[in-house]
């Protein structure tokens, strides 16, 4: 009971702030992301804020602390809907859990724009997303190329429930299975934060002495893989490939601890989400999916303008 008093107080405090923010403009578009601790989400926010300035709308950007907190995200969704927004950007942690609230939004004629992993339903007018299956397949192609198309590899993913995490894991594993019969994915482990990902990496390397490569499927995992390899003194003896960017990860690519990484285009994702919301409000027709793209970067190409533009520090 005391916990509910505390959370009630906090909810009241949070509820107060965006009201002040929405005074600037009459069009209010809240974005609910899947998290905010990774630099990825901060970059999505940067793009969204840029678009809000270009299109003169007010946005808020929030997300739960961890990508497992489905309930927290639902609370956030219900709080922003109570503020009668004109449109909504939403990256669902769990589409089913959010379904009743999204139906409510639909009934109130609030266009919903899915982003990142999107929303599994026909309610969103469009979804601005990275094709994670294809992006992870590219990581698998690069890995296969770098290890000479045969040998043992492993995967570290953030968790086993989030859709984009599952897609990246499966995209990588299936590409190996279908295209490279001599490459064997010997282990898939999960590391929710940097420390856990480091520990998981070390265990995998020690358990599989013949391991040739590891794929870290997000920012925390990629840096965890790099960290684990460094701690075991195996730098450059293993091919490590990451996903996403961020300062530490770019440094790891520069130093060669990571052979390279796949980057999404988070700034573009944030921008296009707000842009799509504005277009939807104007009644423009939108495609069902807006692909925000992905790129391979390594120590050789990360300074090229087209790559540098999508990397975030």
């Amino acid at each position, binding site marked *: 009971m*005391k*916990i509910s008093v*505390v959370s009630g107080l*906090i909810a009241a405090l949070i509820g107060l702030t965006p009201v002040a923010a929405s005074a600037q403009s009459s069009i209010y578009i809240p974005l609910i992301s899947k998290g*905010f*601790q*990774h*630099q990825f989400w*901060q970059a999505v926010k940067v793009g969204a804020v840029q678009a809000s300035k270009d299109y003169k709308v007010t946005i808020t950007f929030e997300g739960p*602390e*961890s990508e497992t907190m489905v309930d927290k995200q639902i609370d956030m969704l219900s709080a922003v809907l109570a503020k009668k927004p004109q449109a909504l950007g939403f990256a669902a942690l769990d589409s089913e859990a959010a379904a009743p609230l999204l139906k409510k939004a639909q009934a109130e004629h609030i266009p919903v724009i899915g982003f990142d992993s999107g929303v599994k339903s026909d309610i969103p007018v469009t979804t601005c997303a990275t094709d994670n299956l294809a992006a992870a397949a590219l990581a698998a192609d690069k890995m296969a190329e770098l290890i000479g198309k045969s040998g043992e590899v492993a995967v570290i993913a953030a968790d*086993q429930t989030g859709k984009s995490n599952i897609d990246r894991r499966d995209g990588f594993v299936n590409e190996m299975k279908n295209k490279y019969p001599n490459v064997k994915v*010997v*282990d898939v*482990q*999960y590391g929710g*934060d*940097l*420390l856990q990902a*480091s*520990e*998981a990496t*070390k*265990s*995998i390397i*020690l*358990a*599989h*002495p013949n391991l040739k490569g590891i794929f870290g499927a997000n920012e925390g995992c990629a840096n965890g893989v790099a*960290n684990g390899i460094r*701690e*075991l003194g195996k730098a450059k003896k293993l091919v490590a490939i990451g996903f996403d960017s961020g*300062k*530490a990860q770019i*440094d790891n690519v520069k130093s060669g601890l990571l052979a390279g990484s796949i980057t999404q285009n988070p700034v573009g994702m944030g921008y296009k989400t707000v842009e799509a919301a504005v277009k939807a409000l104007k009644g423009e027709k939108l495609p069902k999916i807006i692909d925000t793209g992905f790129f391979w970067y390594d120590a050789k190409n990360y300074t090229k303008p087209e790559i540098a533009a999508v990397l975030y520090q």
Partner: protein
Amino acid sequence: MAATSIQSRGSLLAATLVSQDTRRKFLAFASLILIVVIFSLASPNFFQSANLMSILLATAVNGVLAIASTFIIITGGIDLSVGTLMTFCAVIAGVFITFLGLPLWLGIVMAPVTGLVCGLTTGTFVAKLKIPPFIATLGMMMVTKGLSMVISGTKPIYFTNTPAFSDISMGSAIGAICPRLPVPNAVLILLVLAVLASLVLNKTLLGRYAFALGSNEEAVRLSGVNVDRWKIAIYALGGAICGLAGLIIASRLNSAQPALGQGYELDAIAAVVIGGTSLSGGEGTILGTIIGAFIISTLTNGLRILSVPQEWQTVVTGIIIIVAVYLDILRRRKPATAAGPAKTVATV
């Protein structure tokens, strides 16, 4: 029993603990050895020096947090804030070293000092304002977690400009003396801290009062001891130790990760209870806690080495915690019935 003075209660307590302890420590240690043997038989990759070193390193952060928790749990309290307080201290070190560019030593000192101040605050809430420890530390958990995010701007703070910082955890003072044993400093810090904490708990007034508070706080108060002051001191000590954990993790990851930390308090509590410390207070040992921390990290490592799916790793760890604590309860019940009610003093 009310007539028993603190001194004789203390010595009685000490005597009870020693006799019970040697047996219990041996059993806890034996179960750790058993786990190691099982994993060694199950996989040839488990018992190799690199992996054993990896287990040692993986125990450092949880071990230090568990030591902090041990003090507080012995007083009959609980500390839910250890994980996020650790992160907060790491962030403060980052602010001093990276943001403000102040000397390295100052940032290093600030981590435990920050922990100490937060511990003092929590202790004051518990002792003076009579807020139950569960609530006071829950509040502190949220406050420190939020502040870490606010101060860091939700971004990791890197220590890339101060390469020496990573030596706190990853350098090896032992390796410098004996090159064949490159034990990382993080492990050395854990072991030294364990010895010091053990001395504080068993040889100082602070330790005596920690046990006494957990056994019967009212009796201690009635005998004229300033209970509040000692309680605050114990929470402050716990906080300072969390600051040390903050240094270890920040140094190991070469960054203060503001989002990390929640959930670490439960691992710490698990290590404490596996180590035989009673959640109702009044008894416990540092050695037990350290063994508990090693049991958890060995299990996690071993199950990963065997490529057990993560879902099942969590299930197994949960079962082990329950079994370990139940065995401990059984062990405790037997001598109590055999030797008569006198033995139960420690658990009152």
